[in-house]
């Protein structure tokens, strides 16, 4: 690679009157050089692999990436000097790391969308599984959507007040041993395996209501056990981000502490709090084990959280996949629905954050 059409990027040295002499304009590779190296790297890799045997896409891309990184860095070292070569190498590594991290995400979405699309549709979303057996391809997940939304909603209703108030206590009031213990226990709670939460809820309700009791609220309690520490942690972080100056400004206006917390601290951090809550919902909405244990599965819609089994999307997907046949398609479509619900929740959270975030625009 020759560098004939270089444009100087550093300003020309001032015609120094004896004082500071700047380094003369640096030689740079042209803007299209990285692209040329990328294309060249892939072509060379293809040629080499074609000579050696059968080229695969992964092989060509992998070898091409290595050739690109080495070629660009070495050329840059000779044309532009050591500092720019290091810069190009670092840029290359960071970009590749990003692309590498993107691969599982994209492929997961791709698989779920392509396989889920087979059955996904208005009928699938709006019917339940009553009277569907054997190889029948009808049936849908309306009952599981209702169950998932009800149970997750109930878990949110339990977790958010507890989590919010605990976080407020820890940030605004908590001092000394009690606060330290709460923080420690929250950390421990974060690590509870979900099946343990399920067993806890199961035995709790069995102790109180007897062994035959089954209800959606059992699952909600199990999920809230997993959700609460996440809510506490994220809200705590958000509250600590609120500058102390704002608290002082409010207190100095003669505003009582509780009103300062409600109207200044929470108001300033509401965007982050909503995001944190949504993340915690996303964390538990796909939980299978505790729900399998507590609420089980049924074929029709159950609107009553306090009586009877309920269907939920993850458990439904698990059971259908187990059955095989058309069940596998149902499982993928249910998984797609679950992802769409989470995305929808995130979208709502974004809108809420946008609405409430501090106004900084002029």
């Amino acid at each position: 690679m020759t560098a004939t059409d270089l444009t100087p990027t550093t300003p020309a040295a001032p015609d120094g009157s004896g004082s500071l002499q700047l380094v003369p304009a640096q030689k740079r590779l042209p803007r299209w050089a990285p692209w040329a190296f990328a294309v060249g790297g892939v072509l060379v890799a293809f040629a080499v692999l074609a000579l050696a045997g059968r080229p695969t896409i992964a092989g060509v891309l992998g070898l091409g990436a290595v050739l690109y990184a080495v070629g660009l860095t070495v050329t840059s070292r000779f044309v532009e000097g050591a500092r720019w070569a290091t810069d190009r190498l670092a840029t290359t590594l960071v970009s590749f790391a990003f692309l590498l991290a993107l691969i599982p995400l994209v492929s997961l979405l791709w698989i779920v969308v392509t396989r889920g699309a087979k059955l996904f549709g208005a009928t699938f979303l709006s019917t339940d599984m009553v009277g569907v057996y054997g190889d029948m391809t009808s049936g849908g997940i309306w009952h599981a959507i209702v169950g998932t939304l009800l149970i997750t909603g109930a878990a949110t209703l339990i977790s958010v007040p507890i989590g919010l108030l605990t976080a407020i206590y820890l940030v605004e009031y908590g001092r000394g041993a009690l606060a330290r213990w709460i923080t420690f226990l929250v950390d421990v709670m974060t690590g509870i395996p979900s099946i343990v939460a399920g067993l806890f809820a199961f035995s709790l309700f069995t102790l109180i209501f007897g062994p035959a009791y089954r209800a959606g609220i059992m699952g909600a309690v199990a999920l809230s056990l997993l959700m609460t520490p996440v809510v506490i942690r994220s809200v705590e972080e958000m509250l600590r981000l609120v500058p102390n100056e704002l608290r002082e400004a409010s207190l100095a206006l003669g505003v009582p502490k509780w009103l300062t917390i409600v109207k200044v601290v929470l108001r300033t951090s509401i965007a982050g709090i909503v995001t944190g809550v949504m993340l915690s919902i996303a964390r538990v909405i796909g939980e299978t084990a505790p729900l399998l244990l507590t609420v089980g599965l049924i074929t029709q819609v159950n609107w009553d959280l306090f009586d009877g089994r309920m269907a939920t999307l993850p458990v439904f997907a698990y059971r259908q996949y187990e059955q095989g046949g058309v069940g596998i398609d149902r499982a993928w479509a249910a998984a797609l629905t679950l992802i769409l619900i989470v995305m929808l929740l995130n979208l709502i959270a974004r809108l809420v954050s946008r609405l409430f975030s501090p106004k900084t625009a002029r």
Partner: protein
Amino acid sequence: MSKRIDVSDLNVYYGDFLAVEGVTMAIEPRSVTALIGPSGCGKSTFLRTLNRMHEVIPGAHVQGKAVMDGQDLYAPDVDPVAVRRQVGMVFQRPNPFPTMSIRENVLAGVRLNNKRISKSDAEELVETSLQGANLWNEVKDRLDRPGSGLSGGQQQRLCIARAIAVRPQVLLMDEPCSALDPISTLAIEDLMAELKDEYTIVIVTHNMQQAARVSDRTAFFNIAGTGKPGRLIEMGDTATMFSSPSEQATEDYISGRFG
């Protein structure tokens, strides 16, 4: 609208640490009192005891008396929130509420306290407060814009407007100009000269020219060494303090021989 404060034998603590010791001073109404002294000598700490903001810090407490027109601010039955409504405060760094517009910032003292206020009263309060802070002409066309979009000096005057909107008796200013450029500083100093007709003003400043320019009385604080408590060395009319102070330490500080 202004009251005098008599402080006697006030000791200020952070936990067990005695930060300011034995302050006795009288703060006259309708005048500007400047607190000067080297860093860490307890000027700001002392200032914050005058509206009980000091005790917001965990473990901080106070011994002694601070009497505002016959009422001891530290009497057991006195609500610190009520004290802060009477004694307003402006901080070193401008701190408008970022979630609020300029109008809402001025009304913060009313709105945050859940007090109801009619729309016309609110408009009037916003205008008089902003005019009182010499900011009205600059922002009257953009009252619904966020307060954080103003320049530093404008933000500080917005904070002053916010403080005087709750109609305090006393206004405390903790180095209000230290984050501002000379022109904004001048605007705030002019404002102080106007405000002292109505309010008792106490200002902490590191800038001795500023103290000489704006204040009627000056108090000099000093500290014997790190870990020792700060003390009030002397207090007097600003003219006297800057021409012929009675203490050697004051003269050394004012003439720039230390600090």
